[in-house]
């Protein structure tokens, strides 16, 4: 039973001092959780601490590999809106490329 920090972590340190088991440590390229120490805060807190302060949606997974904070849950930016924006950026980029080669 352990949480996992994945590559979308931005290394903001916020989770590290909160862990009641000192399971979180700084590593490269991002912070990691020692699965042998992590208890998901059961017995210490109502909510797991790392995922309660983490600002990045999807950066922490639970023991089943599910995102503890799924897209849209923290920022209010819906996945559909984000996808639309990313498509628009891609389109602008392609147009600029085409204009350059023309």
């Amino acid at each position, binding site marked *: 039973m352990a949480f996992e920090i994945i590559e979308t972590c*931005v*290394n*903001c*340190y*916020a989770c590290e*001092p*909160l862990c009641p088991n000192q399971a979180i440590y700084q590593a490269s390229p991002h912070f990691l959780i020692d699965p042998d120490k992590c208890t998901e805060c059961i017995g210490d*807190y*109502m*909510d797991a*601490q790392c995922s*309660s*302060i983490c*600002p*990045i949606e999807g950066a922490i997974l639970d023991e089943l590999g599910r995102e503890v904070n799924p897209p849209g849950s*923290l*920022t*209010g*930016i819906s996945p559909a*809106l*984000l996808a639309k*924006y990313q498509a*628009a*950026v891609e389109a*602008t980029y392609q147009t*600029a490329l085409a204009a350059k080669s023309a």
Partner: protein
Amino acid sequence: MELPVLNSSPAANSVSNADGGCDSHSCGSTGDQLGHLPEHIRAKVHNHPCYSEQAHHYFARMHVAVAPACNIQCHYCNRKYDCSNESRPGVVSEVLTPVQAVKKVMAVAANIPQMTVLGIAGPGDPLANPERTFETFRELSEKAPDIKLCVSTNGLALPESVEELSKHNIDHVTITINCVDPDVGAKIYPWIFWNNKRIMGREGAEILIAQQQKGLEMLTARGILVKVNSVMIPGVNDEHLAEVSRVVKSKGAFLHNVMPLIAEPEHGTFYGLMGQSGPTHDELQKLQDACSGDMNMMRHCRQCRADAVGLLGEDRGQEFTMDKIEDMEIDYPAAMVKRAEVHAEIARELEIKEKASAAKAELAKAGLVAIQGLKKDVLKARPVLMAVATKGGGVINEHFGHASEFLIYEAHDGDVRFIGHRKTTPYCEGGDTCGDGESALDVTIRELSGCEVVLCSKVGYEPWGPLEAAGIQPNGEHAMEAIEDAVLAVYEEMRVAGKLEAKPVLQQKAA
């Protein structure tokens, strides 16, 4: 303890208005609005570029990014903050350890002796990283006692930090307060982390507001100066900010800084992606004017990055990256001697300026009776906005094509007032076109909308025509002159030439 607030005395205001807006303490405009402050506060802020408009032409500041963690989320912030090409709060290129930060501060202090102030402003919330923030402050108070220390916070962890803050050489704290009403707050803060829980929406905003207000009261009770920053978000808190200004003033904040929302889709923030726009220059100025009835407004803020270095408006951070300072040997005692000399030199220059403006004010008073007849004409004259290109020192000393920002001044009735600044891409550095087909010159012209004159040390032949066509008169005749004197001189030329009686055609079209 309630601190007196700048511009709060109606008597002082009416006197200055009656005789053309000039009294010995705050001549002209910008003069130093610190004139109304009690001596002990003025002594604390006179060389602080972020608190004194006058000082920001001479003294530099730096931020060290030691505080990456945050305990709240704001809709104008994106926590993926590693872009080196952006200049806005919350963005940094490298997060430093306290040891690295202290080294960097001492390297900058030795190389830029005008640097008087070190701030910790992020990229997260400094008080959500208390160990890293306070270790940096502790070391610096000891090793570099001639540097002022400041901290900027969202206020959530402020009450528990006040005791520690008052132990260090920190006499200024900035709190970002965007609202005093949790219903407004719910539209700005999606969540806070509080007592080991993430608290969403209105409930979170309510706690945040209570903590901010409590922290503000605790700081002013200890005589620590508090500046309040507010982000103006049109349609969300714009109408509410006058109330914020009134409340924070009543609790002893000495300066209110209303800043425009920065929100572009490419920043990836909630507001950016939702199409929430920032205020126009005009909307911002109107709100600042409305709030200034309640309290002194700060208009020269540049919304610096959390790792900015240099004079406000410039960023020399690239000269002081960790790999570059690693090898620098700093003899701080020697640097302190040099720094003291530079500071004394600037103080002398400022004193001469102040005396000159006081003398001018006396002359104006003496001449008042004589020009009474003229005054009717003057009063008919309309205000004029002028843009100024400067590298600092309070003089016009930057080429039009090299300016990455312009300071905006308003001349009216023989008075000059600093309004704000507008950022742009230097015309000489801009490529032919940006992504949307707008040239760097087009962008500058758009940014300078509303201005009728642009004063710079030099302006090339090429931009001259388009500027004139846009109703902005280029003027390179006042190079190296003091900004306010030059603005007044040009205003007077315009008045004599009869250009101040009606709005120019182009400006009317634009309006």
